[in-house]
Every structure is written in structure tokens, then in C-alpha cells.
């Protein structure tokens, strides 16, 4: 039962491991969950999820897996659970309702009404009946537990039952905002871009290396021998190419957020604008485009291959703008956008494309496919998950 839960979690991309599974079992043995579904949910969440971005996914899987108890697929057990409830309910009705009530129900309208009445009764009963949620532990060995629980908790218990309340905890899906496949804010971007930082020691010696100084001094029989080490600093250099105008206007805000996040993060950060696809000219200030134009070749000359190139654009345009010389919507370009893309990605050792369009929509535009090919699949959605994948790609 629980193993199946773990596999379902792993299937949903939550990296739960054997260690954590064992911890969960141990925790249950220690009685932390104390036979309450709510507590079991809390305990398994604290044990198996280690990242708030996964909490929402966990809630969904938990809902699915333990809803599965309601109607197991196939097998004897499954058949039984499909057959039992109605019959069982009728029996229960006979047991719980007084003759007077039954007569009343007959008068009021038969089985439907009877069921209504029964629901109320069961809801009352539930309050006093403590062992009801024990089904998690025993997982169906007792037919009364498994099937008994089923009509009560899920089909009938409605508002008052403990189980319903428990279900709500994960059905509320309060952690949806934290899932990393959704759109991002400035803080989240910063977080992801930090991965890009790579501390490396290079450059001039500036810092006193105390341990080494002491070691050398000791080696020198006590006469002081100062040792220096290079200061740590951020060596990641980034070139940003931002698509601006046209279809990108929708995404300008999100690009601006990404941009402002980058600013604080790198020592060497240069940015250039292009429209739809980079050609022979880029510009550095969108408001004074004419004056700030720079030939792309000069950019390639000026910035070494160790700069990491990040394109931000929706890659939605006419395919001719990519593959055809003269295809640009703004001017006559001698060489195709594809040629320029190849030149740029060939020059920089690491490059990636961030696309603010949802990944599912990429297939719909032909040009996105073309650029995806030109980037050798290094195109990532502008979500926290996408940025993480990109930074991993760039810092490899």
C-alpha cells in the first residue's frame, strides 16, 4: 500500500527515496501519526516532501492514491467493494433506524429518502466511532474497516465526517502557488539564477591565507612566511539578448523582471535588444534605438566565448524571418536569421533560449520549432523550473 504511494510520488516527480520511506514507517511505528488520517497526511508530507514546490504535487498524489481505496481496480476486492455498499447500507438501515422511522420513510418516499436519513445517522455515529480512520494502517484486512469506511467516509459522511475533513486538507491544494511549473516573480527568478553563480578562485592574490601561512611558518621553524590566496568572486559573465516589440509586448513585463533580477546577480552582465530574431545589428537602448545600434559581429568580437548567452524571446514570427535572407519585417537582411543564430551560438560556449510562452504552445508556431532546432533543444520555458533547467545547462 505505502510502497505504491511512494512509486506514485516518484512518478509525479517527487524525489522520495528509500531512506525517507523507512523514516515514514519508523515514524508510524513510533506512533507519531496516531491513527488519524490528518496526522498521517502531515507526517508523510513532512517525511517525503523536501521542497515547497513539490507540496502541491504531493497533495494531488495523496488525493489520488488514497482515493484509490474507495474503488480498487479489478480483483476480488474491487468487485466486493462495488457490490457491498448498497446491500450493506440496507442492512445498516435496518439496524440503525427504528420501526417508527422506517414507517415514516416508507410514507415519505422509499429508498432515496431512507438513504438521506441514513446519511444523517451515520454522520452522528461517526462522531463517536473513533477507530474509523484506522483503515490506513490495516489497509483492508478487515472487511468492515475497508468497506465500512468507504460508504461512511466518502459517499455518505459528507460534511461532518473526520475523513471528509481530512480530504479537504489536501484537496484544498494550498501550495499550488509554490509549484515550480507556474509563472515566476522577481524573487523566484533570483533564486534560480543564483545557480548560475559559480565561485571560482582566479585573478590576483589578495587575501591572507591564514592556515597556509601558519603551516609555512611552522615549516620555516617559526619565522613568519605570509601566504596569499586569490579573493573569491563571481566569475559568471552573461550576455542577455532580449526580444522587444511586436508579439513580445505581452511579455515585456516578465522579461523586465528577469532582467532586473539578473542585474543584481552578475558582475559582468551586458544586454542587447533584437526584434524577433537577431540579425547583423543589435541595440542597447530601446528608446534610442538608432543611436545605440551595435553590429552583431562587434559584439562577438568584444565578448569572449566564456560569456554565457541567454536569449529571451517568444520565438513566434513568420518562418521566413528565420530561414530567408531578406525575411526580416523591419529591414533588408543580407543573411538569414538562422545564419546569425548559428554564428552567435557557435561563438559562445554556452547559450540558451528562454521562452515566455507556455511550453505546450511551442508546437503551434513553426518558427519556435526552427529556433528550438537552432538552439539544439536548449530552449526553456520562462518558469522557475525552466530557469533552473537553463542554469544547469549553462553551468555544466
Amino acid at each position, binding site marked *: 500500500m505505502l510502497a505504491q504511494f511512494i512509486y506514485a510520488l516518484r512518478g509525479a516527480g517527487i524525489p522520495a527515496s528509500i531512506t525517507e520511506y523507512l523514516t515514514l514507517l*519508523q515514524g508510524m511505528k*513510533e506512533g*507519531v501519526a496516531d491513527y488519524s488520517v490528518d496526522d498521517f497526511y502531515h*507526517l508523510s508530507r513532512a517525511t517525503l516532501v*523536501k521542497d515547497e514546490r513539490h507540496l502541491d504535487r504531493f497533495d494531488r498524489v495523496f488525493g489520488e492514491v488514497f482515493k484509490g481505496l474507495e474503488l480498487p481496480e479489478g480483483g476480488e476486492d474491487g468487485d466486493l467493494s462495488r457490490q457491498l455498499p448498497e446491500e450493506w447500507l440496507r442492512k445498516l438501515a435496518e439496524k440503525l433506524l427504528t420501526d417508527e422511522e422506517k414507517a415514516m420513510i416508507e410514507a415519505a418516499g422509499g429508498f432515496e429518502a431512507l438513504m438521506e436519513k441514513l446519511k444523517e445517522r451515520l454522520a452522528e455515529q461517526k462522531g463517536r466511532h473513533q477507530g474509523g480512520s484506522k483503515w490506513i494502517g490495516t489497509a483492508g484486512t478487515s472487511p468492515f474497516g475497508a468497506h465500512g469506511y468507504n460508504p461512511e467516509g466518502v459517499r455518505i459522511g459528507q460534511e461532518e465526517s473526520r475523513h471528509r475533513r481530512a480530504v479537504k486538507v489536501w484537496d484544498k491544494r494550498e501550495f499550488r502557488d509554490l509549484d515550480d511549473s507556474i509563472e515566476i516573480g522577481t524573487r523566484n527568478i533570483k533564486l534560480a539564477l543564483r545557480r548560475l553563480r559559480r565561485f571560482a578562485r582566479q585573478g590576483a592574490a589578495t587575501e591572507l591565507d*591564514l592556515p597556509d601561512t*601558519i603551516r609555512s611558518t611552522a615549516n620555516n621553524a617559526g619565522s613568519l612566511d605570509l601566504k596569499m590566496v586569490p579573493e573569491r568572486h563571481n566569475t559568471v559573465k552573461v550576455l542577455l539578448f532580449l526580444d522587444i516589440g511586436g508579439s513580445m509586448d505581452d511579455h515585456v513585463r516578465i522579461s523586465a523582471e528577469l532582467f532586473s533580477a539578473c542585474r543584481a546577480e552578475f558582475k559582468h552582465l551586458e544586454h542587447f535588444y533584437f526584434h524577433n530574431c537577431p540579425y547583423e545589428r543589435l541595440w542597447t537602448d530601446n528608446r534610442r534605438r538608432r543611436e545605440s545600434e551595435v553590429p552583431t559581429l562587434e559584439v562577438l568580437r568584444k565578448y569572449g566565448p566564456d560569456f554565457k548567452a541567454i536569449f529571451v524571446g517568444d520565438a513566434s514570427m513568420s518562418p521566413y524571418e528565420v530561414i530567408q535572407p531578406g525575411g526580416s519585417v523591419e529591414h533588408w537582411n543580407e543573411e538569414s536569421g538562422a545564419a546569425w543564430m548559428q554564428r552567435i551560438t557557435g561563438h559562445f560556449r554556452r547559450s540558451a533560449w528562454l521562452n515566455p510562452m507556455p511550453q505546450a504552445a511551442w508546437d503551434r508556431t513553426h518558427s519556435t520549432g526552427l529556433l528550438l532546432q537552432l538552439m539544439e533543444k536548449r530552449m526553456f520555458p520562462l518558469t522557475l523550473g525552466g530557469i533552473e533547467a537553463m542554469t544547469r545547462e549553462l553551468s555544466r
Partner: protein
Amino acid sequence: MAGFKSTSSYIASRDLEVAVNAAVALQRPLLVKGEPGTGKTVLAHEVARSLGYPLVEWHIKSTTKAQQGLYEYDAVSRLRDGQLGDARVHDIGNYIVRGKMWDAFEADRPQVLLIDEIDKADIEFPNDLLLELDRMQFFVYETRKTVVAKHRPVVIITSNNEKELPDAFLRRCFFHYIRFPDRETMERIVQSHFPDIKQELAREALNVFFQVRGVAELKKKPATSELLDWLKLLMIEDLPPEVLRSQDPKTAIPPLYGALLKNEQDVHLFERLAFLSRQRQR
């Protein structure tokens, strides 16, 4: 099992209680994340208090090394003593300075060890503590001795999410994400901190607070600790609740807003919004 429960001064949700109790029962570290100001650090104090254990606090800075939590070898004073001919120099043990974890391990009764803001340290920091937190023991190279915890301390680790923590580290911890409290919980929290606050003032203040939090573009949303500070100010100033309720355009920005909004851009934003709402009202 005598477990951790909400106290009169700290309102813990049920999931937090379960997480803390699991960490205590299985003697594993509890990693707590959440928005700044939602009571991550205070949690450790409360756990220590409710279990009746002393609290050892280890605050992490960007320069903190894992080794500093265990022990440090003060080579410089040994060098000095050596050159001065001090007799202490022959025992290297004299120059071993104990760290916070050593203190927690060697204590005669179980302790609560708070490792605060672990994400501030170098990215490798958590990896350097894997074995120490797992086995609750470490080896002192200089003296060739192994320090083993007499009682495994309850370890509570907080993180503000500035860095990713390594998987191997996470696997050994319980994890809890402190959600921002809903209105009902917030009322209980306010009540527990200011038992004699005027009901009306508390209600109006919470209205304003959740309204401020509802503004989507705020750079830093005020959290529980800001609310409590602000309430304290309101009580000291003894402002009547009507001031908070007033829709008067001149006071559309909450009084003493400095406690809630910590960023001048946010203040500007709020002023602009207040201005807009004024226009609408006309």
C-alpha cells in the same frame, strides 16, 4: 506521547505539531522553511520551552564554516605561546575551541539545537554536516578523539530559501513549510501576543493588514512579525480603531505604515493605489 503543542504564546498548526513530534520521536533534524517573519526561529524557542530543554543557538552567516560548529583549532595563540615558551603549548587540547554542536553534544541533558538560516552559508555547508547530523558524532583530528552526543539533541534548521540545499542533506531531515496564517489563525496569534488588545482595534488592524498583503505587486509583503510590531505601535500610540476604518482620502495609507512597509517603492505603490481608490470613490 508528550508532544509539542500550541502554547499560549505560539500558535502552531496541526501539521507543524506533527512535524515537530516526528522529528523529536525519530531524533532527526527538522528543516523549517517559510516566508520571512512567519516564526521559524521562534519555533525553536517554543519547542525548547515546551520540551523543557535548554536551547543552543547557532546563527549562520555567509562566512560560517561547518567546522566552526564543531570546533576550531586556535593555531595562532598556540604559535604565540610556543614563541613565549608557555607550558600550555605541549597540550594541543588547550587550543581546541568548542563549537555550538560540540556544546549540544556534550551536555548532560538533551538540548534543542537551532541552526538558524542555513541557506546563508556556502552552498557546501550542509554537505559538511551530513555525518555529524546523522550519527551525532564527529572526530577531532588534533586530539584524535571522537565526540559522541550523550543525548541526541533536537535539531531545528531554518532556511529562507536563498540557496538550494543538497538532496543528501534533505533526505535526512523532516521538512515543514510554514504557510502564511489565515485570518482565523492570525486572530489567535494576535490574541496570544496581546491578550488585552481592544477587540475592535485588532479587527480593524487585521482588515488593514490583509488588505495591504492583498496588493499583488508589493516587493516585500508584511508578515506576522511586522503585524505584531505594528500592533504594538498602535497600542503605544493608543490610536482609536476609527482611524483605521476611516475612508478619509488623507489617511488612506495606514497610520504608522513604517512598521508594515519596509521598502520605499512599496510605500510609493501604496500611495498610488490609495490615490486611485480615492479617484474611484468620487
